[in-house]
């Protein structure tokens, strides 16, 4: 089973401390390609969450049978097989969603985040912890890619949630900037993703540095002062 502490650590690592996109800087290829709007980024992350949770369980359950020397090929085999199965199941049963997520699912095989977490976490931890690790790493990716996508489309097109009508036909993208906004192509092209990702990394580091400074300034006897 999983303790509360373990769960908090895993969640904190996934969402903030070890965030795949702005700390580990992994999986940049899908990040650049899909975050032209928030919806695409979020959808790719959702598909990745499913695959990461599944591969986490599978590898953690089989971890004692996998010899150390051939762990990488076996991990790749497991991840690739699971991605293909997810791809087929989506195509067969959730066709509408597949039309939206479809192009992203095979991309997940090449996403080094999955292999990295399987190697760094699932190979050494029990299945339940590995599942949560996969899910929370994916959640970390979800908010980063969603935010990056939202910034890119806002700067590039002046809209937000473009393409939402392809997931939920009843919803429409929101035009945040005036219709006359000329657009800013750089934000939509891959270099724009790099620049904005750089800004996000700087922002995170600044927040962390500020938090560290505050923790230092505040003397450890603060508890006594309040009491």
């Amino acid at each position: 089973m999983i303790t509360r502490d373990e769960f908090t650590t895993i969640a904190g690592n996934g969402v903030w401390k070890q965030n795949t996109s702005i700390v580990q800087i992994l999986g940049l290829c899908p990040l650049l390609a899909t975050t032209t709007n928030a919806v695409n980024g979020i959808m790719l992350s959702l598909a990745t969450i499913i695959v990461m949770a599944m591969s986490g369980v599978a590898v953690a359950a089989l971890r004692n049978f996998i010899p150390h020397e051939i762990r990488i090929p076996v991990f790749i085999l497991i991840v690739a097989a699971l991605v293909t199965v997810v791809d087929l199941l989506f195509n067969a049963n959730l066709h509408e969603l597949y039309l939206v997520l479809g192009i992203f699912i095979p991309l997940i095989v090449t996403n080094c985040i999955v292999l990295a977490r399987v190697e760094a976490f699932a190979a050494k931890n029990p299945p339940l912890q590995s599942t949560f690790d996969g899910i929370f790493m994916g959640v970390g990716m979800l908010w980063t890619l969603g935010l990056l996508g939202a910034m890119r489309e806002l700067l590039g097109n002046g809209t937000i949630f473009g393409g939402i009508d392809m997931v939920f036909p009843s919803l429409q993208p929101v035009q945040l900037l005036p219709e006359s906004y000329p657009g800013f192509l750089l934000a939509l092209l891959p270099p724009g993703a790099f620049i904005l990702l750089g800004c996000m990394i700087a922002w995170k580091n600044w927040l962390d540095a500020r938090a560290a400074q505050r923790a230092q300034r505040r003397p450890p006897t603060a508890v006594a002062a309040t009491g």
Partner: protein
Amino acid sequence: MTGGARKISAPGMAIRTAAILFVFVIAFTGLLSAAYQWTKPAIEASAAEEKMKLVDDVLPRAEYDNALLNDTLTLPPTPQLGLDEPSTLYRARMGGKPVALVFEAVAPDGYAGKVRLLIALRADGTLAGVRVTQHKETPGLGDYVDPKKDKNKSRPWITQFTGMSLATVANSGWKVKKDGGNIDYYAGATVTPRAVSKAVLKAVQWAEANRTRLIAETGATK
């Protein structure tokens, strides 16, 4: 690995590792083929459904009564359509009489490579509809040729072609207004609509020239 407790000879180790890897490969290949077999019928059904949805965009279902997906003709690579691979032409009939041809064409000179089109041409020579099925045009700039990305939802750019025919519009009219034709475009993104207009004209000219042959030929009628 350093300092293993058990002493295993190198070849023995290699064989053991290979055997384990083999077992994993067999197990996961089995899983894959099971999933493939299990999902195959559903996937095929939805692929056909999807094709019909594309056709519905260019040709209303009320205009024909045959099983369109089964009344096909396999076309060899046709340069006039911009296709360098074989493609499929669908024939729509109403009470056995041909009403329209539905076929693919490619505009090879889009801003970012090929723009694939699906064209439906009625028997009287008018276009029932044109749709972009695949493109890599710049998001937010040239991609308005795809009605899903067009900001003008009530009258997307691509619908301008609907109703046009060689008989009513002179060849010079099948161009964007900047080039002296009838086709509107958004300022700043002329390359894509220009390429699409050119490809549509060429495709319609080809279909008109070959109409009788395309309808009569029983090449791949299933």
